[in-house]
């Protein structure tokens, strides 16, 4: 479902009704009797994101995930939406240098942090050693999971979790490849590991 364009509420009975007992709390939320001023945002909010070294000033529905913000609002469609539930790894990006799942990150939560996507990996038109290694070893078939695989693999090497093939398999297990290109992905990471170390 596209959070930006669809009406927020579905047809049918609202589960809100089940929480009738919490009506008091809901009322309190509308006008919180707290000393500090409420700062909450509902609906749309201004969100500034730093992606691949560039600042993007956006106005987003607060529900927008980092993945949807990248794909639908910044035209950065490299990160893929596979399961949208943090199970497949296709949406993997780097936030402040560590690999995370952009589908389980709210865009507004990523404010003030440095996001790097597959589009930000190549430098001056030259592929990152991991990108080249995936080509050299044919580390994909359909390619849908590949941006996530590569972002995850770069972090895997940087973390020091690519010393052995077993380590690579264990620490890459959060990236599913339904074409089962796994042996070639392991070979690609093995190659890039040395080149990244030298860089």
């Amino acid at each position, binding site marked *: *479902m596209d*959070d930006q364009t669809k009406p*927020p*509420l579905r047809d049918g009975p609202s*589960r*809100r009704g*089940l*929480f009738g*007992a*919490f009506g*008091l*709390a*809901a009322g*309190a*939320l509308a006008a*919180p009797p*707290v*000393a*500090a001023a*409420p*700062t*909450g*945002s*509902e*609906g749309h*909010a201004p969100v500034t994101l730093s992606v691949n070294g560039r600042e993007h000033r956006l106005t987003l529905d*607060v*529900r927008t*995930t980092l993945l949807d913000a990248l794909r639908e609002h910044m035209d950065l469609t490299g990160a893929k939406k596979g399961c*949208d*539930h*943090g199970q497949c*790894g296709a949406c*993997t990006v780097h936030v402040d240098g*560590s*690999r*995370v*799942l952009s589908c*389980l*990150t*709210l865009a*507004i*939560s990523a404010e003030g942090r440095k996001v790097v996507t597959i589009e930000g990996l190549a430098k001056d038109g030259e592929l990152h050693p991991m990108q080249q290694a995936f080509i050299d070893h044919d580390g994909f078939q359909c390619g849908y999971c590949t941006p996530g695989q590569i972002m*995850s693999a770069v*972090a*895997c090497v940087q*973390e020091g*979790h690519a010393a052995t093939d077993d380590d690579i*398999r*264990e*620490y*890459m*297990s*959060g*990236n599913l490849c339904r074409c089962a290109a796994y042996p070639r992905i392991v070979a690609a990471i093995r190659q890039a590991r040395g080149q990244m170390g030298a860089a």
Partner: protein
Amino acid sequence: MRPFVYDRAATIDRAVQLGAHTASGQADAPVQFLAGGTTVLDLMKLDVMTPQTVIDITPLKPSLRTIETGPAGLRLGAGVTMAEAAGHDGVRTQYPVIADSLKLAASAQIRNMATLGGNVLQRTRCGYYRDPSWSRCNKRVPGSGCEALTGPNRNHAVLGVSKACIAQYPGDFAVALVALEAQVEVDGPDGRRTLPFEAVHRGPDQPHIEHSLKPGELITGFFVPPGAWTRSSLYLKIRDRASYEFAIASAAVALDLDGDVVRDVRIGLGGMAYRPWRAREAEALLKGEPLSEDAAEAAARAALKGAVTHEDNAYKPELGRRTLVRALLEAARMEA
């Protein structure tokens, strides 16, 4: 995902203040804290959790991100990520059961995101709980019934279950904490308090009330007391895949041997219980006795004695027994 008010808390006081506007601290509460987001956002997308306000406590993380090890024990800040704790030298060498439980859980990406405070409160993976198109789920809709009792229940719990709910507690870290008699530090509208970790997760009589934290209370850290047993400790996790899968049986064992005689032992069981499970009967049988394979088997039988199985999970008591025997014997070898 339904609309919600997004708010940020830059201090613990502010988080507690905002969180206090809720009638319940449970999954159905209208105000939820957001840390790593790996449970809350997942369940919000599934329409299982429908908070009206989400309080982002990510800005708190630096203050909750400390790990302290020393003669007085181990303190883990609630904002420490799973990856940070799993990779910490002091945790790895002094409390291997904790490092193992974290390293063997989830994926590298999730371990980078998920915090320890949120990890212990992760929700069950019961398919009926996670899919609101099933109308009967006592955990989601109090009093509605339980589909899992008669539906596919291969991954459901056999220890600590009731006729109201057989959902399995899915986590690993909490099993290590319960075994090591950890304490939880919370901050809330009534101030700070510490409670035994074992008292956090509740039994299945009212499945929708999962934990004993009060509205607005925020976990700030965990304290693990020192003991001769923490160094010779391990987490053995049995699962359907070699990696990135929840346990179908697991054992957290911490052992202090005098020669081959058990001076002290701590045992937690996971992957088969309604909540993080401490196997006290097994511990009592082992204490003061030589740790033979027979003794380990007798202890494991005692640990699973109260198991209640359903159609598809009848394999679990035997798997649980074998898992615990192997964990005990492996822990004994760590001492040698």
